């Protein structure tokens, strides 16, 4: 089996190299008689990379299912008692496997891209070459630096050493693929951008072509990041979902820059502006995805996420340097092609709001990058490491996030080119009054009503931030609602349809814009959920039979505690009854497991989620003197809003992917050519 896998990886590498070199040859000598045919073989070789990497991945997964412990990777990341979904997840649960998985996803994106080449064969040929170049790097890694099919020396082992128990959670099966789909996916817009730059592509059509790719990728990355947060929340058992760990930061950076790109690319599409900036943004997004991997796997920066540290850091460093050099070379070679087509007409305009939006996203990204690197810088400068933890990021990034929220509210209401005072008044009066009313309501209501009520911003900085955040969220919601309402009214006046039907039609006419508004609304819901963290409470207590504990509106009674022994793990847990207003409403069983194969212990918190708050119980262990369990209780208000908001964001993203009702772009008739003459651009 391992031999087939190794062979498939070598074959894939050969195909990538061929696709890359033949593709370049065909593009350089495009006026030759034979070059279209050579280009076609390059494209086909690119298609076959996917088949070869898929074969290798299948071999790895099948080996895991067959408990083939002759393969070192399977031995280290699986064991016989491991349940099947996690055996499948072996493909991304360790260093070598996840690099193979990365290659597989890149090959899959390349596969789709190369099959859809008829959209614009020349542009796609360039993009295909760029993707083949990136593919070569990852295949070199899995072939020569981190081969997942390496054999285990010595006698055949009876059982594997098992999967890290923290990873044995259902989200483990979907979180890494989503995140990787996001990371890898940004290679595609980058490939198109670089291709368009190299070929001096006339016009902005390439942006139109890559728009969906970018949105899909962004959706995956968003999904991956939040799944990671949810995983941390449900598995790590410290009651939070985001710890500003370097690995989390590594995923956040490309997300921030990618989000900036999604916004500023509209400037280029609509107004032919910011071409240089967008080129750099899309490159930065791609580069940061790779940098994140480099940071966390080279061991340069320490992190909770334990990836085996190895020499692949050097490979990544070289790849980062080479890709930067290639990009910079072509940028300076062709940069006069990226001239802007319009001037900026007014400081108060949609254009300038996009500029500030980009500034804030880049700043947030810079802060994360700075915080991640600072321990290293400090070590170099003053000789000792320091910790840059949550207090730093919270203090520095929250104001930036609030400013971004302001722009989210203001931006969509500004007109392109210039906005007069009159128009500002007209659009902002209502939403601003609404937001102020919400703020007053939050301050004036008695705290006994529930968590976010009775907000006294003067008591604590976090309360102040929460109040600001929630009021600004209200502002964004009102502006989004007013956009839908006014648009719907125009259509309803014209067609005589009801308001709801009109709004649906409105959305269908411009799915990207209104899908985008729904994404904004989802972000608002997420931020309300995050703002709830200002009211978190926690408590630790030893709980014997019948012991009571109170937190917030809940009273908990320990009904019993017990132990169990399974093939894969031994566990102990407590059975807790939850009372509210004197009625029993639920039973929770926080648990602690000891995994035998890996000799590790983990906690499984029990969470009761409602719209108002999450009751989060952690079984911390037994008091050795009394043999009674020690439990930690967290009351985390509004956390469920975060996960709801993510669903809304995803719904908005999917909506934005649906084609508009009126197809505005007409495509000229295709041309079939036999041994065709070279395709020229320009006049």
């Amino acid at each position, binding site marked *: 089996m391992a031999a087939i896998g190794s062979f498939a990886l070598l074959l894939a590498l050969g195909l990538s190299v061929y696709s890359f070199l033949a593709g370049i040859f065909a593009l350089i000598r495009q006026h030759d008689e034979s070059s279209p045919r050579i280009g076609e073989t390059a494209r086909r070789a690119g298609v076959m990379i996917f088949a070869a990497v898929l074969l290798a991945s299948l071999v790895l997964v099948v080996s895991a299912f067959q408990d083939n412990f002759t393969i070192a990777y399977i031995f280290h990341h699986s064991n016989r008692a491991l349940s099947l979904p996690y055996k499948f997840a072996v493909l991304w649960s360790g260093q070598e496997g996840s690099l193979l998985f990365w290659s597989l996803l890149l090959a899959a994106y390349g596969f789709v891209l190369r099959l859809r080449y008829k959209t614009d064969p020349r542009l796609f040929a360039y993009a295909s070459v760029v993707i083949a170049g990136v593919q070569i790097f990852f295949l070199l890694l899995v072939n020569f630096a981190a081969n997942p099919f390496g054999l285990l020396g010595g006698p055949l082992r009876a059982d594997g050493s098992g999967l890290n128990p923290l990873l044995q959670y259902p989200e483990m099966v979907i979180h890494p693929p989503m995140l990787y789909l996001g990371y890898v996916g940004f290679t595609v817009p980058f490939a198109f951008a670089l291709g368009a730059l190299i070929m001096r592509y006339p016009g902005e059509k390439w942006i139109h072509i890559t728009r969906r790719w970018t949105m899909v990728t962004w959706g995956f990355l968003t999904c991956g990041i939040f799944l990671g947060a949810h995983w941390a929340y449900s598995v790590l058992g410290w009651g939070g979902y985001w710890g500003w760990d370097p690995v989390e930061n590594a995923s956040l950076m490309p997300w921030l820059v990618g989000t900036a790109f999604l916004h500023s690319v509209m400037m280029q599409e609509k107004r032919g502006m910011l071409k240089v900036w967008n080129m750099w943004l899309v490159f930065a997004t791609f580069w940061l995805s790779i940098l994140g991997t480099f940071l966390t796997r080279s061991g340069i920066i320490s992190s909770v996420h334990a990836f085996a540290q190895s020499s692949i850091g050097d490979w990544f460093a070289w790849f980062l340097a080479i890709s930067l050099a290639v990009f910079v070379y072509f940028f300076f070679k062709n940069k006069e092609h990226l001239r802007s087509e319009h*001037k900026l007409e007014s400081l108060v305009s949609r254009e300038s709001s996009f500029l500030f939006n980009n500034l804030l996203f880049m700043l947030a990204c810079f*802060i994360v990058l700075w915080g991640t690197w*600072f321990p290293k810088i400090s070590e170099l400068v003053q000789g000792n490491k320091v910790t840059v*933890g949550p207090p*730093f990021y919270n203090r520095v990034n929250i104001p930036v996030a609030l400013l971004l929220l302001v722009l989210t509210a203001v931006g969509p209401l500004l007109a392109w080119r210039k906005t007069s005072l009159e128009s500002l008044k007209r659009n902002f009066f209502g939403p601003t009054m609404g937001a102020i009313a919400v703020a007053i309501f939050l301050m004036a209501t008695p705290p006994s009503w529930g968590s976010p009520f009775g907000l006294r*911003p003067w008591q*604590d900085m976090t309360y102040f931030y929460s109040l600001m955040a929630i009021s600004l969220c209200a502002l964004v919601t009102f502006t989004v609602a007013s956009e839908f309402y006014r648009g719907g009214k125009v259509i309803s006046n014209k067609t005589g349809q009801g308001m709801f039907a009109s709004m649906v039609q409105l959305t269908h006419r411009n799915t990207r814009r209104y899908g985008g508004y729904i994404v904004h609304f989802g972000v608002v819901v997420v931020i309300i959920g995050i703002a709830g963290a200002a009211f978190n409470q926690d408590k630790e207590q030893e709980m014997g039979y019948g012991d009571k504990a109170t937190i917030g509106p809940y009273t908990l009674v320990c009904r019993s505690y017990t132990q169990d022994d399974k093939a894969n793990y031994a566990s102990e847990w407590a059975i807790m009854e939850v009372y509210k207003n004197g009625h029993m409403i639920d039973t929770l069983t926080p648990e602690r497991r000891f995994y035998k194969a890996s000799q590790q*212990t983990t906690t499984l918190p029990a969470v009761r989620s409602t719209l108002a708050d999450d009751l989060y119980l952690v079984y911390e*262990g037994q008091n050795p003197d009394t043999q009674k369990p020690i439990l*930690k209780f967290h009351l985390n208000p509004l956390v469920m809003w975060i996960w709801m908001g993510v669903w809304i964001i995803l719904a908005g993203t999917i909506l934005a992917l649906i084609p508009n009702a009126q197809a505005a772009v007409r495509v000229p008739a295709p041309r079939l050519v036999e041994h065709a003459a070279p395709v020229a651009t320009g006049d």
Partner: protein
Amino acid sequence: MHKIVNMNKLNPTLRRTLQCVILCSAVFAFLGAGDPASRFSDIGHQLMCICGCHQVLLECNHVGCPDSDSMRNELMASITRGDSDSLIQQAFVQKYGPTVLAAPTTTGFNRTAWIVPFVALALGLVSVSAVVRAWKNRPAPAIADGIKPPRGVELEQFREQARKDTEL
């Protein structure tokens, strides 16, 4: 011509309001910390567990952690003794090294950690403003590689066509 918003006109009031808000929140932020429980929580969230779990001290939950319990007890003891925040932090740094603080201090080289983001914001604002100004003042670029706009009757005719084509 149009009335474009004059931001300078808004500025004095806006600025004063902002200053008030910032001042108030700063003052009340200092008034907040008082009772031992909230001090324990505040300081405990500014310290890291040193066992290698990379978690904030009060959030370290991993079973059988060799350090967090004793660290928490030390913290509680110092608070009941009535030590000041900075004294407690100094004691922890002396005992466990500078990585025990969850965020860089505001002294010496560590200050740069805090200053740089704001410098970046300032630089960013300055450069965006410079870009905006430069773009406002530059001559209108020619459309699509220097096509001359039509004149007279021809212009009107094409404008009319554009109007018709884009009517809702």
